[in-house]
């Protein structure tokens, strides 16, 4: 297991004020020069932008530098459709004082996006329970200390809402 300890607490002291429903601003990523900056730049525009192999279009891990499919090393960050299905989900009950603002357990989802990427995120708003594996979600964004963070909005199961049929090919609901 990864049980690494660090002393990186410099921005995690101070006040608990924040615009996010869940976390203190001190947890906002430092985006300038970060390996994920294209994702954050896209998110600032309300777009979900993720890395692909520029040669063969394989969806890549967020920090992947060489394509495991074709060996190419050109990475193309592309806008993708903000939809996905739940690959795994947990309700986090432990709420670390000083970091978590919410007063109740909160969801953490591993979402398999329509693009093929998997991305861990929480929900756009507080939820009483986590969606089930296989449930469809829309991707929207939270504002955490001025940084927009991908988050999931569970589908309202009303008949007028159309869900992506393509997604059901990758995983059937439980």
């Amino acid at each position: 297991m990864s049980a690494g300890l660090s002393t990186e607490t410099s921005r995690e002291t101070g006040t608990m004020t924040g615009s996010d429903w869940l976390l203190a601003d001190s947890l906002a990523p430092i985006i300038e020069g970060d390996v994920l900056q294209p994702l954050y730049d896209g998110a600032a525009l309300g777009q979900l932008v993720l890395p692909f192999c520029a040669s063969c279009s394989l969806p890549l891990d967020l920090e992947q530098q060489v394509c495991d499919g074709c060996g190419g090393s050109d990475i193309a960050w592309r806008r993708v459709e903000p939809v996905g299905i739940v690959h795994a989900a947990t309700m986090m009950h432990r709420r670390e004082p000083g970091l978590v603002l919410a007063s109740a357990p909160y969801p953490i989802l591993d979402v398999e996006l329509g693009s093929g990427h998997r991305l861990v995120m929480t929900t756009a708003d507080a939820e009483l329970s986590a969606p089930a594996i296989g449930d469809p979600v829309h991707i929207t964004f939270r504002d955490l200390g001025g940084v927009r963070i991908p988050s999931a909005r569970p589908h309202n199961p009303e008949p007028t809402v159309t869900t992506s049929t393509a997604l059901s090919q990758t995983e059937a609901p439980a």
Partner: protein
Amino acid sequence: MTASDRVDLVGLGMTAMSTTPGAAPQELAREAVDLALADAAITRADVDGLLVGSSQGIRPDRLGVAFAAQGGFGDLRLLEHVEIKGATTIAMIQRAALAIAAGEARTVVCVFADAPLVAGRGAGSTYAHSGGQSGTRGLERASGVLGSVPTYALLAQRWMHVSGARPEDLAAIVTTQRAWAVDNPAAVARTPLSADDYLASPLISTPLRRLDCARPVNGSVAVILSNDVAIGHPARLAVRGTGRSHPVRHRRAGAESWFGGGRRAVDDALEHAGMSRSDLDLAELYDPFSVVTLMLLEEYDLTGGAKAGTFVRAGETGPRGRLPTNTGGGQLSGFYLQGMTPLAEAMVQLRAEGGDRQVPGASVALVGGIGGRLDHHAALVLERAA
């Protein structure tokens, strides 16, 4: 010296496992080394190799190669800091055995020390505050993934969904290992535990409760390997086989990204040993969370084809079971000292020093190690020499 073709584990030293802040890793390592040297009936002058392991992360007091001087060793022929996360301990055994077999060293000390418990903050809080604000980890932390529990909770939920395991299987692992720990003086949690007690344990991240999580301690374990048959503890434990597997998984549709790919480590270790799974008298697996033991029993093909939950609920990992597993309570009820936890318990059992938890006639043990998010698997087969 009298050299043998075989490399044996000839010394074991363990500090007390403390659940409260105290000594620094270097002090703990020094104590464990002293105990291991005494156990092997040798002195530092007999040692020509030193391998050190420590938790990763930015720790100014982390144990490193400077321990050669700090720990009072003389000139060495082998000195390395080994780092492959939770697979480090077995990697150290592999490194030492290869060096000894190649004639690069004769008697090698391997020591791991950790002191995650610091004054003024609980271990969970320390882990929650670590990880930084950059890269993928920074994005995950900005999504509420604080500490290591929620990641393993996602892994647990996914694996249970795929395998059909149920929450009562987790309860069975936890209560079974606690029953082992009751008779282990080195364990930090020795109060008998019922299934109801388990269900009363607070949830940390569904489905994982506090009792599903390892117990961090401040402590150290040192072991000594040698091919010198003239030295060492009278009960000689031979390194019969080792194997590693580092499955490279990706976070994309089409395959599982949290688990799979570890079996080869065990296959290779057994092949190296010239043994099969039916030769194993016990298994000591790396179990930072209850679900990991379940997963590994299936992943390593140790249940004879049964579902891990069925296997555990039938008592097969307990006393008189087909494969007594984590017989000191593991990292859940014993102590979490990363890869040293399963290795130390295997040595105690194979030496027949397990007291009331002794597995009768134990002569062959499988020791496992995992690192990262099940990204690194290491396996070691030990046999008590006749």
